[in-house]
């Protein structure tokens, strides 16, 4: 079936199978940041924005996304690099496989709630699994990023 999705701001039309999943659609269009970590709708690695909401692209039919906007990390390079630097500064991750999904959901959190508390951070990111770390480095990285953002905004 023919579908058209606005992927990272560009209209993409393709012929897809009725059971094609959004994760495979975006990967076949060059968005390799989107990873398959579990296939049981649990790990958060395949997070993309469908319209403006973070969703698990492994659980969405490409057909269902027809006519909608899909954003992956490839479409948020500047924002992702700015925030990702703070995670790297903490040496938070080892293998980095979970990083794109984690960054996507963290950016979704900051859009909904620009200055979340520690509890709010943990609650919002609970669906992003990392099997190398204990999440402490990521938490420190987020807090360092928020402190930097606050001081930058205060200076402006």
């Amino acid at each position, binding site marked *: *079936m023919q579908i058209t999705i606005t992927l990272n701001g560009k209209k993409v039309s393709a012929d897809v*199978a*009725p*059971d094609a*999943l959004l994760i495979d659609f975006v990967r076949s269009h060059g968005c390799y940041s989107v990873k398959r970590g579990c*296939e*049981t*709708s*649990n790990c*958060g690695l395949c*997070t993309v924005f*469908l319209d403006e*909401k*973070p*969703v*698990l692209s*492994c*659980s*969405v*039919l490409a*057909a*269902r996304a027809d006519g909608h906007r899909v954003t992956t990390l490839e479409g948020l390079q500047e924002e992702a690099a700015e925030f990702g630097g703070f995670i790297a500064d903490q040496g938070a991750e080892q293998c980095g496989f979970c990083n794109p999904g984690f960054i996507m*959901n963290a950016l*979704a*959190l900051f859009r909904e709630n620009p200055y979340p508390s520690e509890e709010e951070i943990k*609650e*919002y*990111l*609970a*669906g*992003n699994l990392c099997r190398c770390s204990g999440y402490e480095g990521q938490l420190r990285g987020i807090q360092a990023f928020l402190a930097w953002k606050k001081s930058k905004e205060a200076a402006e």
Partner: protein
Amino acid sequence: MMTIREYKRAESLEEAWQLNQKKNNRVLGGMIWLKMEKLNVGTAIDLSGLGLDTVEETDEGFSIGAMVTLRQLELHEGLAAYTGGAVRESVRHIVGVQLRNLATVGGSIYSRFGFSDVLTMFLALNASVELYKGGIVPLAEYAARPYDRDILVRVLVPKEAASFCYQSVRNSQTDFPVLTCAAAKTAEGYRFVIGARPGKAMLFALKPNGAETPELTADRFAAEVRAQIKTESNLRGSAEYRNHLAGVLVKRAVRRLEA
């Protein structure tokens, strides 16, 4: 894995219902569970074009479209105000925001899973379901029915003079619950719903007796629920542990609702 031969965004409920009469066709909810089943679907029926993705609130109650996501329930201010945050509490531990942006109320209620936080909560809210052909059916009755081929259109929650409390016990955050407990305090007494026994949620209606202190009421309700409830063992907990938890959660609910 699930395969789909055809995908159809239904243009009316009648069309969805017609398609759903065929045995190998399936209505899609959030597709969280469905896609993990070993299933060859003929036509996947998508209700997402039918405007069933809103929560409408009136003085009498809430009308919740089948395609409303668990995340919408979590963030709905009217539901939060009416239930004292119980609805938010019932869904916020389910996996993650990304999953709750997909999982639908209709999918959860239709599936009637034993572990369902959503079923536990809505039973305590005295909800009904609106079926396309079957009309309005109390959720307690619907939950006991076998799966059929009607279309679940909406979930209806009446506004009662009641207060609510939701609790769950999980071995770790975002896991399935070991036990769920929703409580409602109404003019007639208490409703307790205990789910993840691990079987389907059970409803208990109990009345306080005027002479009792709240603490004695809590103890008596806990003992009555523990005596009536059927629990079983699985890898998350034993039947005995669940029975014990049921008593603890009932007591905590009464303390909170009497405070």
